[in-house]
């Protein structure tokens, strides 16, 4: 498949997305630390290559289901960062009008069916979206992002069983960041690779380096092509690592500083930048320009979001049911 690092436009787009996810979450962390953000947050810093690579294989009208650690999925599928930030800042202009927060952002205009506060909650929902695409004959594909922790929940099993039985156009994409909160995935699952589980469901399974955006894109592209042509579901395990704690309360008691430092040397963003430079596709100046552009766009989005009116309690009772 076409090497992303050798195509200037593709390389720019990849870098822009990965940097935007990184900077967005750093901004969230900063706002939270300064007491300007409410609630909790789950950061995916270090995991940016997975949503970025995966969404490159998707059309705008393809579906994704996302997770509590979902900012990256949202951004990679094309969501508006100002509306995302506004949601996190509890503004009326946020994606959910302040009713959902970080864990419930969806953007149906870009096919994002929503983040989810239940770790495997999106699995049967993705199966249902794929069933819907199949029944409507649209050729749309659903990608279900989930973490390693989700593979301990019954919803994962049931969602995959149905998708396999009906050979639906869905890709189950596990972001194995090695921990379900504090539970190490290698301790939790008696498997060498989580993709070994796919065989038990009668679907293809593959494990890729989740910090290699090219590897993720290629694996997802193959799975999406299979799904779109009627070949049924695929399971992909993307190995990556969560640099930050699970959420704000995490003291990292379950892992070592050395382990975190070791994984930081496998940062997906500089790794891809190095490849682009090596290929001579872009210059260091181009890379600097992309970083600056992302920084400026984000800064302006945060400012606009922060200046917007707070979410209002008016009409909350009427918001429960659609009419």
């Amino acid at each position, binding site marked *: 498949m076409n090497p992303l690092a050798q195509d200037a436009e593709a390389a720019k787009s990849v870098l822009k997305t990965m940097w935007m996810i990184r900077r967005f979450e750093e901004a969230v962390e900063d706002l939270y630390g300064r007491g300007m953000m409410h609630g909790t947050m789950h950061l995916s810093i270090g995991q940016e290559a997975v949503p970025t690579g995966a969404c490159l294989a998707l059309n705008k009208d393809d579906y994704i289901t996302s997770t509590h650690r979902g900012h990256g999925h949202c951004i990679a599928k094309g969501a508006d960062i100002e509306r995302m930030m506004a949601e996190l800042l509890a503004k009326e202009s946020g994606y959910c009008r302040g009713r959902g927060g970080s864990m419930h952002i969806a953007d149906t205009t870009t096919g994002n*069916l929503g983040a989810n506060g239940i770790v495997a909650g999106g699995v049967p929902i993705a199966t249902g979206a794929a069933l819907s695409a199949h029944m409507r004959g649209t050729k749309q594909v659903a990608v279900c992002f989930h973490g390693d922790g989700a593979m301990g929940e019954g919803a994962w099993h049931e969602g995959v069983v149905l998708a396999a039985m009906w050979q639906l156009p869905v890709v189950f994409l596990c972001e194995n960041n090695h921990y379900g909160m504090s539970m190490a995935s290698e301790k939790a699952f008696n498997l060498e690779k989580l993709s070994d589980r796919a065989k038990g469901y009668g679907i293809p399974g593959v494990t890729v380096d989740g910090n290699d955006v090219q590897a993720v894109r290629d694996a997802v592209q193959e799975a999406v092509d299979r799904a779109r042509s009627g070949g049924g579901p695929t399971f992909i395990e993307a190995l990556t690592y969560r640099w930050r704690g699970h959420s704000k309360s995490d003291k990292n008691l379950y892992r070592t500083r050395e382990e975190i430092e070791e994984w930081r040397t496998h940062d997906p963003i500089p790794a891809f930048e190095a490849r682009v430079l090596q290929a001579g596709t872009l210059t260091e100046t181009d890379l600097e320009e992309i970083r600056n552009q992302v920084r400026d766009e984000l800064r302006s989005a945060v400012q606009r979001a922060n200046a917007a009116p707070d979410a209002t309690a008016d009409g909350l009772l009427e918001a429960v049911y659609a009419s």
Partner: protein
Amino acid sequence: MVDEVVEGTETKVMTYAEAIRDALRVAIAEDDRVFMMGEDVGIYGGAFGVTGELINEVGTERLRDTTISELGIVGAGVGAAITGMRPIVELQFSDFSAQAMDQIANQAAKIHFMLGGAVNVPLVIRAPGGSGTGAAAQHSQSLETWFVHIPGLKVVMPATPDDAKGLLLAALDDPNPVVVLEHKLLYKTSGDVRVGDARTPLGVAAIRREGKDLTIVATGVMVSRAMEAAEQLAAAGVDATVIDPRTLKPLDSKTILASVTATGRVLLVQEAAGTLGFMSEVAAIIAESETFAHLRAPVRRLSGLDIPIPYAPKLERAAVPQVEDIVAAATALVTEW
């Protein structure tokens, strides 16, 4: 006004199960987005025969047999509903909703609100509840309170064949998740059912009988027991109104309050265990309203015992209100106050 099939409307005698099947047939024919999935709904015809031979008419695409995966099929229903379909999920027994509760309570019910109104979840979940078949504790519960308590769900309990059809069609029109709680003992009961695509609107109670001495509010299979009790009471000179709320959420409290205001006495009858049951809410609504000032007797609830449903026929019968219990409770309300 006593709710009856309007004179001149074309009707056909059907069982409750046939009426549901007729609704499925009508809905699948009139709307490409409608399909149903569930366990053994295809060639088997449904555990209670609701789908019967419908598979031969509508095919396996629109009537989908699933694995035994309640959480998965409700979740798949949610996914299909938010992407343009109008799915119906049949849970073989309402007790199995415990398996599916995350998708019902955390997903289907909340998505519209949580996402700021950006997405609707037009999902219908059908499930039979109730005791009386000797199926014991894990296949006999009346769990309507679970669903009524979750903001975002609508809940209906059809008590007649015509409502079984009409409420299901109305549920399919609704842009929200609707839980349709059918009753196992009603599947084989018969009645006049409007032919075609007639709906029973959600949120409108039916006054099954009008009387001046007391109001009996009953749900599910208790509606027919209340009607039978009312006949016996009438023979003894006690004239009861019987109200079937039909939709528990949103509840037509106006109809209930108006009747209780007029009669001054109310007996609330449910099969479900009493503690914090649906009728506790009805009692609270009455207590908090102006109707309270018109009460001539305390509000009285008649509920299932706070026990799991037992197996032995005599024990099972003793667990939930019977006709004689309703007669006795109504008589006491009228004679002692």
